[in-house]
């Protein structure tokens, strides 16, 4: 597969997604003594073009490597970042691609990508149970890490009122809880 430079990759995204492409940030840093370049791209797309963006990444690299899906609670919406890497397998050639998607809190849905990348199953299940984002079309929607008797509607990673309630923290006998949970 032909390798494109970071700028050309950005251009190919812009032409594939059109107006659904919001912005891109390129981060570069020189490493150690030989000053080799470390590059990573952060691409922000709209939710309706999300699946098209993932298919475009599959065109750039056959079987792209999805490391993890990270999610942040930004108040009114939830920001999901899909951490891809492409061009692995050769010395100094790999590029990190972070695909950023915003999901509003009143409509917490995102389409699944397990039909394109079967290995995304675990990380989608974790996003579902920890953040409360519903992954539409997921083949297996059981909980992954939380126990089955964990209360429904409680999402540990959220910073609003759906975070774990105060009575879930077992304060040790004879001790006062001295820290307050950071809620925004």
């Amino acid at each position: 597969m032909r390798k494109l430079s970071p700028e050309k990759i950005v251009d190919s995204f812009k032409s594939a997604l059109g107006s659904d492409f919001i912005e891109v940030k390129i981060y570069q840093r020189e490493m150690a003594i030989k000053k080799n370049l470390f590059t990573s791209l952060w691409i922000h797309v709209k939710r309706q073009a999300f699946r098209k963006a993932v298919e475009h990444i599959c065109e750039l690299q056959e079987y792209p490597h999805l490391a993890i899906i990270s999610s942040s609670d930004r108040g009114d919406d939830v920001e999901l970042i899909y951490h891809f890497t492409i061009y692995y397998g050769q010395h100094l050639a790999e590029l990190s691609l972070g695909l950023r998607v915003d999901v509003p809190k009143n409509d917490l849905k995102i389409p699944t990508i397990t039909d394109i990348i079967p290995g995304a199953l675990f990380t989608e299940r974790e996003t579902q149970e920890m953040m409360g984002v519903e992954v539409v079309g997921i083949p297996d929607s059981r909980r992954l890490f939380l126990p089955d008797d964990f209360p429904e509607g409680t999402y540990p990673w959220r910073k609003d009122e759906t975070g774990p309630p105060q009575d879930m923290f077992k304060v040790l006998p004879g001790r006062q809880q001295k820290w307050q949970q950071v809620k925004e």
Partner: protein
Amino acid sequence: MSLNSFKRALWLYHINTGSCNGCDIEILAALTPRYDVERFGIVLVGSPRHADVLLVTGPVSRQMAPRLKRVYEQVPDPKVVLQVGSCGMEGGVFYESYNLVGPVDQIIPVDVYVLGCPPRPEAIIEGVVKAWVKLEKAAEQRIAK
């Protein structure tokens, strides 16, 4: 009758209630030829029903708490419970997390605490020796009754 069971060597059973494995590999290191606790006949067994000593590591996570209780009931009397690592004592670095149901001694009675994160194999061996002494004393008292 009870005193005879401690003339033979102690058999340990180890249960991990959610630990990070640091204490577990130090327990195994205590058995390998460097610290070599096996020369006294102390072995790790595969079933709680054969054990004299129950080794518990880890802060107790919600999923493992009922299993810990069940295993404790399966170990036959006389038994000693040894809790290894700082997590089980108070939670260690994970204290007061939402998925932990408290120190080990709130769920089962503990006899010997070995602290450290993780404790060195020498500390674990000393803990096992203290457990042995405690077992012998318990057996003597039972015979004396």
